[in-house]
């Protein structure tokens, strides 16, 4: 009896450790962004409305905004689109789109058909800006504060729950009150 006590105890301890690990592992597939609390990587990209114009992080300083990475090739983005329109209608904060490796004509068609939730859309044809933001799949949404610092990142289609529980509470009081 005694000779099995120690191995059994070790085994039980291992089971407990692994069970805790499995229980506490964050949502599978979601990787914490190292950007949170750091300045949003600067970019200046052609605008979808007018490619001669630039959408630049420099010009967005001083306001809170959501940077939403999307593409017309992205199925989940279609699923999230309705939520983006609702978010726009709350006027809580502007949405800036980052159209990732997309075809401009298709992107315009998409916004014309489904409605345009964005104040401006930046065109990231090369995908370099998405890489700077550590994007690994669309849609991804970054909440950026008036200092230009990334406050929060959400991977996957934005939902009402995420909007209400993760985004609104992080906004300064006056912006959240308007929604």
């Amino acid at each position: 009896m005694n000779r099995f006590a120690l191995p059994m105890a070790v085994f039980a301890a291992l089971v407990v450790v692994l069970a805790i690990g499995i229980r506490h592992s964050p949502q599978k597939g979601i990787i914490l962004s190292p950007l949170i609390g750091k300045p949003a990587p600067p970019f200046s990209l052609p605008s979808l409305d007018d490619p001669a114009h630039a959408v630049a992080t420099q010009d967005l300083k001083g306001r809170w905004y959501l940077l939403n990475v999307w593409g017309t090739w992205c199925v989940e983005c279609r699923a999230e689109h309705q939520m983006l329109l609702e978010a726009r209608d709350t006027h809580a904060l502007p949405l800036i789109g980052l159209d990732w490796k997309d075809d401009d004509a298709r992107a315009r068609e998409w916004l014309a058909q489904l409605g345009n939730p964005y104040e401006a859309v930046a065109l990231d044809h090369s995908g370099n800006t998405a890489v700077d933001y550590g994007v690994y799949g669309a849609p991804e949404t970054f909440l950026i504060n008036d200092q230009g610092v990334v406050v929060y990142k959400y991977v996957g289609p934005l939902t009402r729950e995420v909007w209400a529980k993760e985004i609104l509470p992080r906004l300064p009081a006056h912006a959240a009150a308007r929604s």
Partner: protein
Amino acid sequence: MRQRTIRLTTLVSAIALATALLTTRAWAVDPTELPDARLQARYLALTHELRCMQCQNETLADSPVDLAADLRREVRELLLQGKSDDEVRAWMVARYGDFILFRPRFSARTAWLWLAPGVALLIGLGVCWRIVRGRTALVDADSDPVGEDPPQAPDARG
């Protein structure tokens, strides 16, 4: 007749599989050749130790997805700019976090990961030592040299 057909299909699939396995290099995902052989070697080493964030269990070198191609291009450009391997890794970690490294760095959070095998080895050695010592104690009494049977052995049989 039917059996022969089955055997034939098995043979054909075996040949197909063997061909596929042997020619993998011919359709490797990444055709990059850097101008300098040493840079190319570093490029290959780096892309084999960075994770494709989209497929997560593949390296950048092995993954056919678009994002992996973008990140390989970044590795290539950083190397051509004269960045060191550590600088390339740091560049990737700054964007994608530690998860992009297949070989995690040693830090307070990863200490247990790196030290656990050593600790397990020490425990194993300790257990071995105790067992061996226990058994040695049992044979201590028998002081006859190994390989020399007691002289009376042949007689004992007869």
